[in-house]
């Protein structure tokens, strides 16, 4: 195959090029020609096509996402904001924490194990790139119906992939979600969150500065895996009628990544890099253009120097390869010897492939022939921006007017049957089958892990400073009202942080949607972003970064709009954290917050084939007061657990089963009290001696509190319904092993 050089492109201006097959639109191709003043070379075309894909360029979402900047609340905590590999937050004591969620949805459908594994690998490298030691991961996952055949194919593979990669990296997995809904059939959502910690002075940025500085590629060798994977896979809706564009999914090697982490941390510690970028989606195309674009602009790369696993790769393929476990660093010549020595110590392959130059062009040559000559900013940052058509889908009004009819149990027997049915349903059932495949102990700092309300990690062993992280979404509320749904997801995530005793500090998100070319989906997306930005402003929580995943749909059926919201909190003394489980008899159970009878979007409604009509409305001012109440009352709470999916019924069962200590409660309007999922509620256990403090807190923060019962015994008694811990436990824990073996 002949090399398509820049000279060749100039001499053969009319050569036909496969821009459409690479996912570019006609006007996008024209724009590339306009930028370059000639047709692109095949290598340039490869670079533009991957970098201008939806996944890399955010071309459909950009116009909306800018609200996170425009409406950003004033925050002293934010050290690095949106735009870098991950945002960085000040948590005090000179520690900085970085955290982010990314999606790896489509690859995980194609090849569940590797798709999920490399999803973890990618987000961990993003965190590492900031200069941080990765300290924990979390995985919000969504699947089609639990008993569907394809779920049995993808779920075990995805769980094993998340565990296989994360466990081998030595990162505790401290939380996440496992949710089932038929719209995720064919579109499983694999979102991966990683959190890392560093000292303020260790923050690294993806910038190539200083002419003469060296560009070093290190880590795994480059192979043919995942070529075009990220862009083509993530940008193309699965459709049986069309020829599919699904090249190989990347294959992960967690051992290589573990060694790369230790190698990078040693390099960072010795302060040997000017800038650093990981190679994820779009591989070298992305790393070189982003580093150059964010820096002074000029860079020269000699592509033949890239170490290859497969020597037959063409330059275009080398540029597009998404081989995992690779990093690209900018190193001053005076530090290169020490840099290489550390790589050698860890047996990490490192190669100087180019240098930063004076000009403002990215030049890539292959065996002396110039094959890329572009302004890097046009590749990395000036991609196309679309203002996609938006239209409120008809279903919204139809649902709003719908009359819903869900059976609500009243007799003791019916209540008992209802509870047992609810807690055995896949969305509410015990997830130990999943979480026991993840190492939650490694690194020795896991203070709380699933199924607790938030995961909590000790940051400093002497001062006991720690962070808490939670991820949440209620896609059914988002379906009914995406604006409220986004606000409610943020409120829930924030509440989960405060429930464990940590102060909410910053937000990240992973926005999973159907096709942006569908105006209805675009409306869901726009409303979600507007809701989240408004909520962040009102609550004073900055968005530090995020990820958008479009095209999660099969044919014309999109997934439920699924904004997964992650909140990071800080706790000054992790020893004071509040666990979810009842831990002694004779305590009083109080329910903080009022219930109403709206069953829309609830699990109980879903179990009866109903989604409801109107989403609950968020009351963020009240949610903020609830957070303050929880933090002030932390000293008197022996246990605390959020009321969310599955309502108070699920909350009660989980608090009882955690330590197998029973409880006895009295509830009026029992079915609504148990199964409504009214937001803004938390169940707490306190010593009866603290009753006055509890009442005073309620008055101070103007939130209703009700004593609903006491702890103790070996059963859960709700009015005249009695459930033994044994039967509760059986119902709660049997579902997953039965379904998945």
């Amino acid at each position, binding site marked *: 195959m002949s090399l398509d050089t820049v000279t060749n492109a100039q001499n053969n201006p009319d050569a036909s090029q496969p821009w459409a097959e690479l996912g570019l639109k006609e006007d996008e191709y024209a724009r590339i020609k306009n930028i370059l003043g000639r047709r692109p070379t095949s290598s340039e075309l490869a670079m533009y096509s991957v970098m201008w894909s939806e996944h890399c360029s955010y071309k459909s979402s950009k116009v909306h996402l800018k609200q996170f900047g425009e409406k950003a609340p004033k925050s002293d905590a934010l050290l690095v904001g949106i735009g870098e590999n991950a945002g960085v937050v000040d948590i005090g004591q000179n520690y900085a924490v970085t955290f982010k969620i990314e999606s790896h949805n489509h690859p995980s459908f194609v090849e569940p194990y590797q798709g999920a594994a490399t999803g973890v690998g990618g987000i961990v490298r993003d965190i590492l790139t900031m200069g941080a030691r990765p300290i924990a991961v979390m995985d919000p996952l969504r699947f089609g119906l639990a008993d569907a055949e394809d779920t049995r194919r993808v779920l075990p593979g995805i769980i*094993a992939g998340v*565990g*296989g990669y994360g*466990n*081998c*990296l*030595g990162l505790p997995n401290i939380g996440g979600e496992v949710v089932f809904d038929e719209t995720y059939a064919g579109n499983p959502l694999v979102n991966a969150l990683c959190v890392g910690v560093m000292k303020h002075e260790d923050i690294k940025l993806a910038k190539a500065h200083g002419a003469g500085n060296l560009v070093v590629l290190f880590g795994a060798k480059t192979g043919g895996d995942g070529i075009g994977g990220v862009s083509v896979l993530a940008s193309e809706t699965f459709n049986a009628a069309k020829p599919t564009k699904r090249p190989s999914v990347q294959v992960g*090697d*967690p*051992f*290589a990544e*573990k*060694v790369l982490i*230790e190698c990078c941390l040693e390099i960072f510690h010795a302060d040997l890099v000017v800038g650093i970028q990981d190679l994820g989606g779009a591989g070298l195309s992305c790393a070189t253009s982003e580093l150059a674009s964010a820096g002074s602009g000029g860079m020269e790369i000699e592509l033949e120097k890239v170490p290859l696993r497969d020597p037959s790769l063409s330059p275009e393929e080398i540029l597009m390869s998404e081989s995992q476990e690779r990093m690209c660093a900018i190193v001053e010549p005076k530090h290169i010897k020490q840099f290489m020595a550390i790589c050698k*110590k*860890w*047996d990490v392959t490192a190669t100087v492939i180019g240098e930063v130059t004076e000009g403002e062009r990215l030049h890539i040559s292959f065996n002396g022939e110039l094959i890329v000559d572009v302004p890097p900013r046009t590749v990395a940052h000036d991609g196309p921006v679309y203002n996609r058509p938006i239209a409120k889908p008809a279903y919204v009004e139809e649902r709003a007017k719908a009359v819903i009819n869900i059976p609500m149990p009243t007799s003791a027997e019916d209540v008992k049957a209802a509870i047992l049915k609810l807690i055995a349903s896949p969305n509410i059932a015990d997830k130990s089958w999943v*979480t*026991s*495949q*993840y*190492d*939650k*102990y*490694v*690194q*020795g*700092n*896991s*203070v709380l892990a699933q199924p607790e309300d938030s995961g909590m990690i*000790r940051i400093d*062993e002497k001062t006991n400073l720690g962070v808490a992280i939670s991820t949440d979404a209620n896609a059914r509320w988002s379906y009914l009202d995406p604006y409220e749904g986004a606000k409610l997801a943020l409120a829930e995530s924030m509440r989960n942080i405060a429930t464990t005793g940590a102060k909410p500090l910053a937000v990240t998100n992973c926005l999973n949607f159907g096709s942006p070319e569908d105006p209805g989906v675009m409306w869901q997306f726009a409303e979600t972003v507007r809701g989240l930005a408004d909520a962040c402003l009102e609550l004073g929580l900055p968005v530090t970064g995020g990820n958008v995943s479009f095209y999660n749909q099969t044919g014309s059926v999109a997934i439920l709009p699924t904004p997964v919201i992650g909140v990071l909190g800080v706790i000054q003394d*992790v*020893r004071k954290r509040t666990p979810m489980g009842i831990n002694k008899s004779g305590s009083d159970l109080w329910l903080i917050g009022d219930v109403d009878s709206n069953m829309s979007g609830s699990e109980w409604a879903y179990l009866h084939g109903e989604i409801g009509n109107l989403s609950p409305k968020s009351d963020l001012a009240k949610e903020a007061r609830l957070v303050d109440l929880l933090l002030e009352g932390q000293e008197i709470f022996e246990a605390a657990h959020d009321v969310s999916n599955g309502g108070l019924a699920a909350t009660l069962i989980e608090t009882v089963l955690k330590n197998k200590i029973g409880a006895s409660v009295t509830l009026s309007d029992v079915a609504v009290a148990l199964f409504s999922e009214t937001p803004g509620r938390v169940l707490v256990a306190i010593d009866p001696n603290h009753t006055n403090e509890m009442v005073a807190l309620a008055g101070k923060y103007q939130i209703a509190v009700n004593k609903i019962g006491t702890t103790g015994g070996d059963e859960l008694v709700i009015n005249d319904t009695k459930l033994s811990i044994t039967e509760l436990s059986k119902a709660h824990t049997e579902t997953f092993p039965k379904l998945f073996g």
Partner: protein
Amino acid sequence: MSFRIGVVTFPGSLDDRDAARAVEMAGATAVPLFHASDDLKEVEAVVLPGGFSYGDYLRCGAIARFAPIMNSIVTAAEHGFPVLGICNGFQVLCESHLLPGALTRNQGLHFLCRDQKLKIENTETMWTNGFTQGQEIVIPLKNGEGSFQCDDETLEMLESEGRVIARYVDFDPNGSRNLIAGISNERGNVVGLMPHPEHAIESLTGPSEDGLIFFKSILHQMVGR
């Protein structure tokens, strides 16, 4: 001078810093040892930590066995030098033939992380003398290949010589023969244990503080502290 216990880091070791924390918490000094050197740095005992040494490619512990540091450890152990292998460390000890048997894929075929109850069966070894005979403890178990297997003859030998140091109780997590969680060599200086005592040293981050006793045992043994 404080008692020095080495903690080996192989490429892919994960619980090395946790083992070092446990060593320090027990009152000894943790000395990092690197796989590529054969220098034991005058330590008086060694912990081989959990993880996936060399990616556990080929077979768990099979490559680590050939690390330069292992040459020194094997030679020393044959002369009574105390060695505790945890999880992957246990696998390395079996591959190095310091302990008999092998650890194979869990019966359930999944990686399993759980708080596991154990019964201490032998309190004579250097690493278990702080326990009482038959004491039940709870420490984390987390592995994909923790099923202890050996031939009948070896099993009979281990049982008759009292070299089973701990057994799983109440729940069989992996299908190990005779529910074996840990064994020792004949002299009792080399102990391999599948569950992780270094993750049960403070109740804040572990299910108990029972694990600390393993590390205190060696201190007691060597210096009477």
